[in-house]
């Protein structure tokens, strides 16, 4: 921050100021208007009415200064005169912060010499300063997050490499808690509160790799809730790249979204990871690789807004930003007329349609906004499914699992199945029974939350057992002294095709009258698989029946009655009759 104390020559200042305006063609607004002082480290918040609140530090020649506040209308076209909230001449150069609750109360925090101070704007007045922490002269980088109901959660760090937090819940202050691990140098924390959770993240030294990594901890919103054990957002850091300056925001599901800048080969990138509990996603780059610094993040209506400075420290090319909507980040864009910047912050309007930025440049605090929020192009979901068993004998119940489907930029909201046999269904995991044999195309169609579709098709072969071969029958006269009857002897042969499919355990014999449809076949008996003959003694007369035989396996699957099974029409079977 000492670089910010370097006095820039007026001519150079004019060039720096004019250039970006001429390049981008949109006008940024100087809201500090403090010639001669160094205005730095601005932070921005938007209240539920859409009014914009910006705080910053004005450094005097002594290297210390005061904490200022200004507010703008929702369009950012009109700004109040800067208000000195500290009036101490002892404000530290490092960051301050501001936030608002659902009652539009404004909470402004800063480091005032050997204390962290808080002032709350409520009922039209700024209340007197509250001392959050005191007794040290090495407080740095205090951040604040206020819940909708006005509970206050603060973090800061001290030069000895420890991150602290303090909260005011239900009007009662908790004690100051160290939330980083002693011995692991930690710094530059950020904090965010959601509906039920509070997440804090910071830089934590990894002495094995001699780099900083982003660590985090979380707690409940209740009074004196405990902070969780510390974990790293991206412990599998294959490039062993240094990670710095994290920012965190929570969505409506208390899902934490963290951005940071990461040193990579040839430059830096802004990286994003989202998660909850101990599971964070693999980071994705949301910026091009270039010289960049100090990302910030805000969330509104589950849309994320991130900004960062691109360019040299103290004289950036521009503030860049990106928007994550529908779980996909758009292409990065630059904030018009934002050259010469160093530190920046972002906040979205209540309806999310306007993105407000503030940054420090040329020893002043600037504001600009964009309203043409880039809408990420929807990437269609990927349909993926498996099914089990992959084949079998009908009737075959098959389970389908589409859990492997995914949407790269959103969520899948619909799973539609076409089983290829006329059956359809819906749901991620579903089962279907194939009532006939054949080869069926299975089609899974998934629809994401933005209407995109993904399709995957596979084929399932449903098998059948085969009827035995050469089914024939003969009619005989069977007599005693006083009685006589007809009996029909039915013969068949084993079908070797079944050997490849299943183990046949018995044969089932059917008959119908000549001329009846196949559904009229009725079972008249069963014989074990090593028997290839059956005798029908329930015969009313000769030449009035047709017989067929099916194969049945140990699971109860039965070959269908297909007239062409044995290669000859059943009606053409030889039907000998032997009469004595």
């Amino acid at each position: 921050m000492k670089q910010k104390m370097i006095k820039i020559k007026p001519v150079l200042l004019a060039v720096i100021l004019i250039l970006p305006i001429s390049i981008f063609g949109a006008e940024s607004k100087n809201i500090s208007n403090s010639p001669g002082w160094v205005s730095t480290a601005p932070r921005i918040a938007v209240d539920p009415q859409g009014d914009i609140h910006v705080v910053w530090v004005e450094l005097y020649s002594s290297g210390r200064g005061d904490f200022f506040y200004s507010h703008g209308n929702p369009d950012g076209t009109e700004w109040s005169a800067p208000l000195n909230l500290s009036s101490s001449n002892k404000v530290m150069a490092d960051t301050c912060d501001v936030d608002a609750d659902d009652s539009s109360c404004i909470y402004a925090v800063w480091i005032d010499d050997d204390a962290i101070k808080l002032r709350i704007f409520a009922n039209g007045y700024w209340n007197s300063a509250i001392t959050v922490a005191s007794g040290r002269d090495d407080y740095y980088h205090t951040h604040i997050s206020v819940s909708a109901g006005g509970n206050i959660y603060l973090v800061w760090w001290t030069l000895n490499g420890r991150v602290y937090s303090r909260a005011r819940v239900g009007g009662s202050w908790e004690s100051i808690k160290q939330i980083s691990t002693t011995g692991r140098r930690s710094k530059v924390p950020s904090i965010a509160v959601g509906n039920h959770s509070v997440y804090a993240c910071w830089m934590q030294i990894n002495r094995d790799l001699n780099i900083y990594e982003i660590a985090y901890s979380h707690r409940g919103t209740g009074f004196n809730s405990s902070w969780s054990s510390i974990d790293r957002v991206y412990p599998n850091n294959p490039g062993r790249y240094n990670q710095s300056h994290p920012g965190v925001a929570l969505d409506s599901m208390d899902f934490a979204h963290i951005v940071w800048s990461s040193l990579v080969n040839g430059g830096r990138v802004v990286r994003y990871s989202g998660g909850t509990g101990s599971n964070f996603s693999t980071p994705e780059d949301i910026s091009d690789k270039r010289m960049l610094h100090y990302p910030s993040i805000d969330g509104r209506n589950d849309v994320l807004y991130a900004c960062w400075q691109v360019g040299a420290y103290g004289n950036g090319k521009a503030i860049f930003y990106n928007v994550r909507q529908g779980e996909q980040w758009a292409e990065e864009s630059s904030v018009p007329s934002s050259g010469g910047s160093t530190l920046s912050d972002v906040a979205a309007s209540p309806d999310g349609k306007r993105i407000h930025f503030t940054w420090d440049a040329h020893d002043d605090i600037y504001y600009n906004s964009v309203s043409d929020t880039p809408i990420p192009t929807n990437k269609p979901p990927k349909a993926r499914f498996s099914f089990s068993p992959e084949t079998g004998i009908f009737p075959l119940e098959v389970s389908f699992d589409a859990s492997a489907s995914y949407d790269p930029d959103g969520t899948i909201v619909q799973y539609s199945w076409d089983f290829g046999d006329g059956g359809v269904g819906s749901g991620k995991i579903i089962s279907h029974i194939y009532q006939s044999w054949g080869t069926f195309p299975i089609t899974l169609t998934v629809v994401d939350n933005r209407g995109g579709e993904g399709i995957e098709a596979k084929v399932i072969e449903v098998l059948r057992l085969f009827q035995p071969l050469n089914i024939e029958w003969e009619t005989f006269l069977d007599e005693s002294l006083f009685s006589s009857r007809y009996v029909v002897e039915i013969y068949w042969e084993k079908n070797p095709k079944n050997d490849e499919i299943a183990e046949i355990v018995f044969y089932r014999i059917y008959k119908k009258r000549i001329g009846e449809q196949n559904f009229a076949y009725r079972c008249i008996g069963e014989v074990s698989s090593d028997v290839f003959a059956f005798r029908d003694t329930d015969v009313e007369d000769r030449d009035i029946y047709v017989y067929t035989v099916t194969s049945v396996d140990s699971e109860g699957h039965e070959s269908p009655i297909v007239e062409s099974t044995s290669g000859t029409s059943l009606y053409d079977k030889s039907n000998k009759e032997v009469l004595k």
Partner: protein
Amino acid sequence: MKKIISCKKKSWIIIFWLLVFNSLFISSALASDRQGTFELTIGNYSMNEPRFEAVYHKGGMIQGIGLSVFIINDFDFYFAMKGFYKSGELTHTQENTKFLLIPVSLGIRYSRPIGLFCPYFGLGIDYYFYMETNPIQSIINYTRGFHFQGGSYFKISDKLPIWLDLKLKYTMAKTEENNLDIQLGGFEYGLGLVFVF
């Protein structure tokens, strides 16, 4: 059934008159060597029916009892009841079938003692009670028939009231079942152990 009842009536009429004859000529009976006989017989019965042979193969053993009562002048009345049982197989399925025939015979016999022999010749009527059981059907019924027979008694000793009997018999007894005409009668020959009283 009417036929059956009329046959029974006729039979009882015959029995009645035989008893009358027996009582009228009781003195003659007492005058002769015998008044009657009781006989245990065993023999072979061959049914004269091709269906029977197809199912039960050849004939078989028949056994029974007989009773005769002297009437007059070498004539006596006789009654016999026998049993004939066969097990066979149905013609195609070879499933088991059982056949039981109980012939009941009544008749009059003429006999003339010649030394140790006493040849005789008789004729009479028969009631054939039969039963067949098999997987096709079970049948119980009876029919009527007639027979003629001949044979001879052999006196083992004049002092012993036990004779032997060698006889031949042929019966005609036709019945109808399931539209089939079945001849249950046939040729019978056998040996009897006769107790004379």
